[in-house]
């Protein structure tokens, strides 16, 4: 058993000096060891991640039996980045007209753009597109497609206009909603897309 009992000042000095020396040596070794493990500078620069599931673009095309087609587009190319969401409308709706509607979801961060609509269609049971309007806007939508369970899906719709009016139309894509449901409020699930267009009927 070795104990470290030092009584005299000389001993103390001697010891501190020795400790210092050993310390110095030890830190040299430590530095060396770290340098050895640390300095392998063979890091290849990482590759960018292309986000495959991101939806950057929503295109709702409404085609009347006769007359002008209406195209509503929402584009947000940087997803949740600070870039602005841009919505455009090719024109206004006509009064008392029936339009065949088809909605597309795209990922335009990839070239060519990825058709997310196909994924939604593939997993129709787990998705539903909702169309909601503000009060006073004379628009009614009905579902024209169904999932395998016979519940509405919403990639294909019929949109019927009434008298001239103004308001907004919101397109919402829900992932894993409760199906069947009585509409957006009771559907639950997670919102993948929700984008609002200001529209007019003339």
């Amino acid at each position: 058993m070795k104990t470290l009992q030092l009584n005299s000042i000389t001993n103390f000095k001697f010891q501190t000096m020795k400790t210092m020396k050993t310390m110095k040596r030890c830190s040299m070794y430590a530095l060396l060891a770290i340098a050895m493990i640390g300095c392998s500078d063979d890091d290849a620069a990482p590759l960018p991640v292309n986000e495959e599931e991101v939806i950057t673009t929503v295109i709702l095309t409404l085609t009347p039996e006769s007359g002008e087609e209406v195209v509503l587009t929402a584009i947000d190319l940087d997803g949740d980045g600070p870039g602005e969401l841009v919505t455009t409308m090719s024109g206004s709706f006509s009064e008392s007209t029936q339009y065949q509607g088809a909605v597309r979801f795209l990922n335009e961060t990839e070239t060519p753009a990825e058709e997310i609509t196909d994924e939604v269609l593939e997993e129709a049971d787990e998705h539903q597109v909702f169309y909601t309007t503000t009060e006073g806007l004379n628009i009614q939508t009905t579902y024209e497609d169904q999932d395998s369970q016979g519940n509405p899906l919403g990639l294909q719709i019929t949109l019927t206009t009434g008298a001239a009016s103004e308001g907004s139309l919101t397109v919402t894509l829900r992932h894993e909603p409760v199906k069947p449901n009585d509409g957006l409020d009771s559907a639950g699930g997670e919102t993948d897309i929700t984008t609002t267009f200001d529209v007019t009927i003339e």
Partner: protein
Amino acid sequence: MRLLALLFLLISSIHSFAQECNNTLNGTLLDIHDGSVLTGATIVVTQTGVAAQTDLDGNFTINFLCESTYQLQISHPSCSTKIFTVTIQGKTQKTFKLEHHLELLNEIIVDGKTTNRATKSIYENLVDQQTITTYSSGSLGDALNSISGVSSLNTGNTVVKPMINGLHSSRVLIINNGVQMQDQEWGAEHAPSIDINSVGSLKVIKGAGALQYGGSAIGGVIVASAPKVPLLDSLYGRTILSSSSNGLGGVVSSSLTKSYQNGLHVSVQGSLKRFGDFNAPNYNLSNTGVFERNISAKIGFNRIDYGVEAYYSLFKNEIGILRASHIGGAEDQVRALGSLVPTIIKDFTYSIGNPRQDVTHHLGRIKGFKDIENIGRISLQYDYQQNNRLEFDIRRGSNSGRASLDLVLDTQTLTIDVATEISEKLSAKFGVVGGLQTNYANPETGIRRLIPDYDKYSFAGYASGDFTINQKWVLEAGLRFDYTHINVFKFYRRSFWEDRGYNSQFSDLVIEEYGNQLLVNPKLDFYNPSLTIGTKYSFGLYKLFANYSMSSRAPNPSEQFSEGLHHSASRIELGDLQFTSETAHKISLTLQKRGERFDFTVSPFATEIDDFILIEPTGIRQTIRGNFQVWEYRQTNAQMYGLDLDASLSLSDNMRFVHQFSLVKGYDKTSNEPLISMPPASTLNSLVYTNPGFKNLSIAIQSNYVFRQNEFPNTNFEVVLPESIEYIDISTPPAGYHLLNLNLTAAINPDMKVGLYVNNLLNTSYRNYLNRLRYYADDLGRNITLQLKYNY
């Protein structure tokens, strides 16, 4: 045992009264080698037969002594028994030292002895093995919650992140068997990767005084140590079986140790924890199951003046995250907050679906020491850790089985410490630490990296010493310097890079351009000094600890590089490349009284943190997915102060009343707003009945009252939906709540113990301000746990 001794003391004191002997001896028992305190030693006054035991601080008290000379026989399980002669004159205080052979051999290498103080001038809170055992089916955070001033930031009830006096994450260092855990601790929803069943003792140092562990411990240090191995030829083990009603699951944990008198020892330990969905009082908490598997092994060879030890542990934990908490933007938030029950409730299941976390942590360590005459003890430690964190979100199609986050953090550290006793009164410690850390974010996730790839080099040196002036005063001081170099490869969105104006400031950092993404290579250096100075003053039954410490912390990768949607928080989080280190100044005081019937510890503290990094909402961003609140990290000056109180009163030989109270206040000094997520005041009161004579029975009724947090920054916001304007209240804290718990333990025989623990006895519905899932669901309902512990 202690109670018996107390009883004995009381009986004999009646006798003493008759002689009008009214003197008290307050003693402290120390290890002659390193001055660490010896707990559980028995002191017998040979003339009278009066006995006492040393407490956790190595202190004992013998009352009603006459003014004369006594012989004290002091014995400790791992020391040779020794007789001391002591002359009593009035109130007498004396320190005794024992030769602590056996323990010395085992403990030095195990490090972080339960009783070895890391600091002299900061009061350290301990959780002993027995208390830890009661949390065998919980987590490290749950066990730490039993300490006053320690709370937790929870994500559900299985992700429990310890918080010391209101600070958490990178501000709290966790030392596991001598190794500083590097387990992506920056994330608020990342719990420490430690198996509670592998821990023999826990120590909490509130503040940055323990410089050997690190300089960035603005909040404090948590030291978890493995149980000690005795130096005997022996084979022993322990198995814990526990089963709980809430979550319909349980834990099996076993350990086996073989030790030899020549110093060789081998131990293995493993545990398995499995729970299905937990439940709140009124509904099932869907997708909250947990599946944890751990194993650890240790082999060592310890002699008195040298030793080596190798340790390895594997921690693997799969945790389900409440399904209803995974939501889209503000529109979904309106729905979730408006609903009294979770928006998704399914039937109970053991299967863990998405969202979930899957964390694997490997820790390996080799340590050796050698005593060198005239220098002291030199220890060398190398450790390697790998932390792999997988997070799975709700995704579409072929991606649904793919992790959204896949980070691998590798850390290597080399430490050299020298501990030297310059004289009986002056001891010192020096050390150097070098580290290398690499973070790899797997691009296969198909989701932009949350934390970028980086290499981090760190180097630190420290020196600390303490000087015992006399029986009453001990002085302590320490210095540390940390240097960190971090080499980062980060992909920025071009839009963010320009929006922040980085394009004009840091254009030279851009090394590659890929469409709308830029690869940027910042190389950052941080220089962080820290220092501590303090004193301990002992007088009579009291001790006063006073400490000032300055510590500084380099910003973590999440604070610097966050840039995007944080799904589990339903918000966009933005870091800042330009952050500087934060610096904290803390003054802490502790007054401790160890009386015969009444003990207390009161610890007020005050902290000023310059360049404190916090995250707060700054606006709403409209995206194609809806509206999201934007939270940006920001640096400010913060101020925190508070008080922790512990008291214990013996009501009778078998009955004890235990009280705890914790209070912390935190303010942003620039905005004069309270800081977010500060723990509300809380009080814990227990009535404990123990009867060592009858099956070592112990019954405790515990009342836990958590006040409502009345001080919080208002981060509520309005969101314009097509048909309405909704006000989203995400900041108002939930109401205060009261929980009643019942703990019952008994020994069927000396080797077999049973425990019955009932938490939330009254099945109270409540929400906890510090639970990140409080917006979506109530906290846990009643839980009855039956535990069987068998030693062999």
